[in-house]
């Protein structure tokens, strides 16, 4: 089992993952509500192979152009292919049923079918951070996660014993000013640090979503109601084709997500990881 575990991890790395970990389904079940466990998606699931990819090149973090950022991310679409490749590899090599899980698999509304954050946390790829409970890696900073759920029993990694967040600089800032860089950057984020540990993390998803999905089709759907309410035909026309028209430029299926990275741009853990990975200043 150990040999197979290592082989599968190496396969994911060879396919382009920056980090790989294994989570036990039995352990995940302790943390998630009924209906949101891996074995609710695949009966008899035993293990989850979670892989993380850095979302951007280091230089991307230094541009102020939102669209340039997002073309960078689109170019890293290979991340989702890792999950599918791992799932197929396990089925073909070992004969165990497997499925791939990628972001934007929705249960209903904007709730996911399963929490990739929990999977990554249980696979030891990082820990919760103040910024919306994102799973932050000390070595890689912000990662985008995908997973393969399988009925194959593998050797699980353990969750990290020591939290990645808060960074010492954030602890010091909190002690002086009762805030952190991410909290100061974005009011969707709130929380409390006590004795150098995160004691409370609060996150307004609605506020984050409108920033991360500013030009997503959901925004245009919201605009559509206002367009239909406008009774003056001239005003209605200009509402539809004016500046707000930009909201429709990301049609469904293009997968343009995460247009806001302000909390991570100021995060000392993430900034250190960018420098370590690429030796840039």
């Amino acid at each position, binding site marked *: 089992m150990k040999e197979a575990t290592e082989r599968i991890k190496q396969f994911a790395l060879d396919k382009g993952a920056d980090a790989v970990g294994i989570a036990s389904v039995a352990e995940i079940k302790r943390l998630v509500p009924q209906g949101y466990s891996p074995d609710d998606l695949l009966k008899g699931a035993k293990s989850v192979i979670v892989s993380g990819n850095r979302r951007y090149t280091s230089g991307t973090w*230094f541009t102020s152009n939102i669209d340039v950022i997002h073309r960078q991310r689109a170019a890293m679409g290979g991340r989702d292919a890792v999950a599918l490749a791992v799932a197929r590899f396990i089925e073909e090599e070992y004969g165990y049923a497997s499925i791939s899980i990628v972001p934007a698999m929705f249960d*209903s509304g904007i709730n996911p079918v399963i929490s990739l954050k929990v999977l990554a946390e249980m696979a030891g790829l990082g820990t919760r951070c103040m910024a919306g409970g994102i799973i932050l890696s000390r070595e890689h900073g912000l990662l985008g996660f995908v997973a393969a759920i399988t009925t194959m029993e593998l050797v699980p990694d353990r969750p990290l014993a020591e939290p990645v967040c808060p960074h010492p600089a954030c602890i010091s800032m909190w002690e002086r000013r009762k805030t952190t860089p991410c909290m100061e950057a974005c009011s969707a984020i709130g929380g409390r640090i006590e004795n150098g540990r995160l004691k409370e993390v609060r996150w307004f*998803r609605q506020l984050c979503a409108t920033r991360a999905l500013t030009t997503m089709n959901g925004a245009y759907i919201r605009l559509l109601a206002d367009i239909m309410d406008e009774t003056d035909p001239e005003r209605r026309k200009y509402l539809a084709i004016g500046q707000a028209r930009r909201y429709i430029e990301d049609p469904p299926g293009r997968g343009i997500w995460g247009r806001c990275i302000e909390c991570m741009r100021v995060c000392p853990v993430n900034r250190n990881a960018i420098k370590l990975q690429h030796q840039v200043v």
Partner: protein
Amino acid sequence: MSQKSYTEEIVERSRKDSRLPAEKFRQNTYDLYCVPVDVYNKYKDEILRLSLNYQEWVAAGDDSVILHRVNQLTDIEIADKIGLDEDTVRRIRCMAEWDIPMEVWRNAAEFKLRHRLEKPLGCTDRDIRNEPS
């Protein structure tokens, strides 16, 4: 030979396969997907607060937030808590998740623009022009 039109045939077959009770058929489009407006207005904010739209991790004792389940509830848990059925809670949540004033989207674009210009952190100072403002 059947007297039904092609469309009637499709509707009938779709009803048979859906296995829904008869009272669920012939609803208008609003009732297919939404709850009455007064029910929506009454529960909208409470459901947003209880669902994943507002998330909290609170650590007990000397613990930290690592490996704590988020405080928020699933639709069925919310339904049990406030005395509605799960389907009604889900319909309200899915409506409410996008029911935010348009101004918030405009403010989102302004937030990103100003944050990048005021705290460049190595960024270029080029104005963001590809989002509405």
